[in-house]
């Protein structure tokens, strides 16, 4: 089977081509079959390949399809590399991709751009598979940019609303900043090592560079730049919340389960470089920590159901970065996997909610949906439990591994651990805030809109009756993902051979108990604050007073705006760029040539003045000239 590895991205690519070349003229049923079927085939193949690969005991398998280009010693190929890490990523991408495609056939059933949607989705899966299969960094970059493009296309899928277009462009440009950093990293690596083949780099790097040498620090820092862009970590995290403008399945697939974790994959894939640059690796940990806390605080204040989930995604990827930064590579990949399960579940469930409530995003205009939307409710409960890392859910095991690894970090272990636990506490509060506000209490769906979130997918709110929209195609993925979210913690991630270490973390019972207790306390607080329970009056009053006090209100607004990062970037980059563009719309250089033309024109006018048309004027100048010339001839 292993030689068929090239077909993995080929199926979705063929699906994309089929959908594009028919220009949306296919009947929906056939378009859906092509869109979903191509991913399904990939998934089947991925399973077969994984079984064979894991059974064979091979460490890795490389398959060269063709040499992409051969320039000097630069010979990257369309060449796929399979090892434990790739297998995990392949299964996540094709498996969850398949479920989300299936769900989308229901979610997008009435959309006029049905075929276009699936063509983009298929292209996305193809690019993502290339990204994780690539055996060299250039091919990885192809996948990397490809997923960015699909992300752009899908965020702006409902293109008639300029806000969506803005969000899409923002996502693309902000990640491109990271991509450019990564590209420079590739140039540096190639110049130093003469290859961009990942495995060769991993072998050569320790031979060529000592730990902490300047070049390896620069190279890994540049790669980190790419990773923070794609994975929406500080300081390039601003695009992800806005990316929620796209259809909800997109948010589930691209902006939660797969693409945004590409940064984590990149760092894990090039972990040798980061191990050689401890300062950068520490930076990774602190970037993760800062992001997870920032996003956690922001998520506490959001009203839009998808923005809450978006910030929680940012925060959870922060955990993965934290894990990478403390060298817990397999814990990071483990969390990547469990996060893919439960975040896809949460997003798909939120899609059901949004669709059932006629494109309502504001959780404070839901309320009491527990009875009306039972499937979504249970999905949310299970997903939130896993997200919060309540015991025995999948998130519990992965987050536990990360926090324990953080505690073992020699220099800043305690700090990182405390930050991570605080983040877990915030996670508990904001995720169950969503559950309690949206699914418990009074029904607010008929309230007058108090606050218009700007990124509603559709502006037309038909306030019809609330009826849960679930067919088989939409319910089945939810159920499967819910099961995975619960039991996913027991899946063994076969990556030990990739990272060369088997990670096991031990901690005292006290630490363990504390880590179990914190999320539960968080859920309780959330219950008291948001479910409207009478026991929580005091707390609710306190929250209200904080929100109404000047300082508290300002802090809330500060958190709500994502810590003012958007404004900051607007002020630092966007405005100066636009001002500069406005200022020099007419091209200064062209003005310089205009000046030359003007000078010539002035000279022309001056000389034209001498041409009076009077004969005697010409005669006098003739004679004057003659006298002058003779005079010069005689006396000079």
């Amino acid at each position, binding site marked *: 089977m292993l030689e068929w590895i090239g077909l993995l991205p080929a199926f979705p690519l063929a699906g994309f081509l089929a959908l594009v070349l028919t220009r949306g003229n296919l009947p929906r049923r056939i378009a859906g079959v092509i869109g979903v079927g191509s991913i399904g085939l990939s998934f089947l193949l991925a399973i077969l390949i994984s079984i064979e690969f894991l059974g064979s005991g091979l460490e890795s398998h490389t398959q060269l399809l063709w040499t992409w280009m051969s320039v000097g010693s630069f010979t990257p190929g369309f060449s796929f590399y399979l090892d434990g890490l790739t297998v995990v990523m392949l299964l996540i991408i094709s498996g969850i991709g398949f479920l989300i495609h299936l769900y989308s056939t229901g979610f997008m059933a009435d959309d006029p751009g049905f075929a276009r949607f699936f063509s983009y989705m298929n292209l996305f899966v193809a690019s993502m598979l290339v990204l994780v299969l690539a055996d060299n960094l250039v091919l990885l970059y192809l996948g990397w940019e490809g997923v960015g493009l699909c992300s752009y296309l899908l965020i702006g899928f409902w293109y008639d609303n300029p806000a969506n277009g803005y969000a899409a462009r923002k996502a693309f440009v902000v990640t491109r900043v990271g991509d450019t950093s990564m590209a420079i990293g590739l140039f540096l690596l190639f110049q130093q090592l003469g290859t961009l083949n990942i495995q060769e780099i991993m072998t050569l790097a320790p031979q060529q560079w000592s730990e902490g040498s300047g070049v390896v620090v620069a190279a890994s820092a540049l790669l980190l730049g790419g990773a923070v862009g794609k994975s929406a970590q500080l300081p390039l995290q601003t695009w992800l919340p806005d990316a929620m403008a796209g259809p909800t399945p997109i948010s589930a697939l691209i902006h939660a389960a797969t693409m945004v974790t590409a940064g984590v994959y990149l760092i894990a894939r090039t972990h040798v470089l980061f191990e050689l640059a401890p300062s950068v690796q520490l930076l990774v940990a602190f970037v993760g920590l800062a992001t997870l806390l920032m996003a956690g605080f922001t998520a506490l204040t959001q009203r839009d159901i998808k923005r809450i989930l978006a910030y929680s995604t940012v925060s959870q990827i922060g955990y993965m970065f934290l894990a990478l930064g403390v060298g817990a590579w397999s814990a990071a990949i483990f969390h990547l996997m469990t996060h893919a399960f439960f975040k896809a579940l949460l997003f798909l469930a939120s899609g059901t909610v949004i669709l059932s409530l006629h494109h309502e995003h504001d959780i404070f205009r839901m309320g009491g949906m527990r009875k009306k939307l039972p499937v979504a409710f249970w999905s949310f409960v299970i997903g939130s439990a896993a997200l919060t890392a309540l015991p025995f859910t999948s998130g519990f095991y992965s987050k536990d591994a990360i926090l324990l690894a953080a505690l073992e970090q020699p220099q800043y272990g305690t700090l990182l651990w405390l930050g991570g636990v605080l983040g877990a506490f915030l996670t508990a509060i904001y995720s169950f805030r969503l559950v309690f506000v949206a699914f418990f209490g009074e029904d607010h769906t008929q309230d007058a809109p108090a606050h218009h979130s700007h990124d509603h997918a559709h502006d037309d709110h038909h306030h019809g009756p609330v009826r849960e929209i679930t067919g088989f195609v939409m319910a089945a993925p939810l159920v499967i993902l819910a099961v995975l979210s619960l039991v996913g913690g027991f899946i063994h991630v076969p990556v030990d051979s990739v990272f060369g270490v088997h990670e096991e973390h031990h901690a005292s019972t006290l630490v363990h108990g504390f880590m179990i207790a914190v999320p539960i306390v968080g859920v309780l607080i959330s219950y008291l604050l948001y479910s409207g329970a009478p026991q929580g009056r005091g707390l609710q009053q306190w929250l209200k007073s904080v929100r109404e006090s000047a300082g508290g209100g300002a802090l809330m607004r500060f958190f709500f705006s994502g810590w003012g990062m958007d404004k900051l970037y607007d002020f630092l980059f966007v405005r100066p760029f636009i001002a500069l563009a406005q200022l020099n719309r007419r091209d200064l250089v062209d003005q310089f040539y205009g000046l030359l033309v003007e000078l010539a024109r002035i000279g022309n006018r001056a*000389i*034209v*003045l*001498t*041409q*009076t*048309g*009077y*004969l*005697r004027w010409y*005669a*006098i100048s003739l*004679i004057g000239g003659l006298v002058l010339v003779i005079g010069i001839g005689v006396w000079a």
Partner: protein
Amino acid sequence: MPSIPYEHGLILAAILFVCGLIGVLTRRNIVFILMSLEIMLNACGLAFVVGSARWGHADGQIMFLMILTLAAAEVAVGLGLIIQMYRRFHTVDISVLSEMKG
């Protein structure tokens, strides 16, 4: 026969030439301009004759004959132009012909 010093002849030619030049520059009537031009041509002719007398060489006198024929031709063309101009503008004032100014 006492010969006239050639300086006198040249001075006369120069005076004639300047007279003609002043005429060309100051007159507005095109007929007078043409006449002044003739005076200038004749001044040149005189200078040639004086020169040939001074060096005892016939070239200057041949030159004078050429100038004479040239002047005749020039007058013919010039008068033709004047007639055209008169027909067109009903005047012989040269300053109406300043359309070529820039």
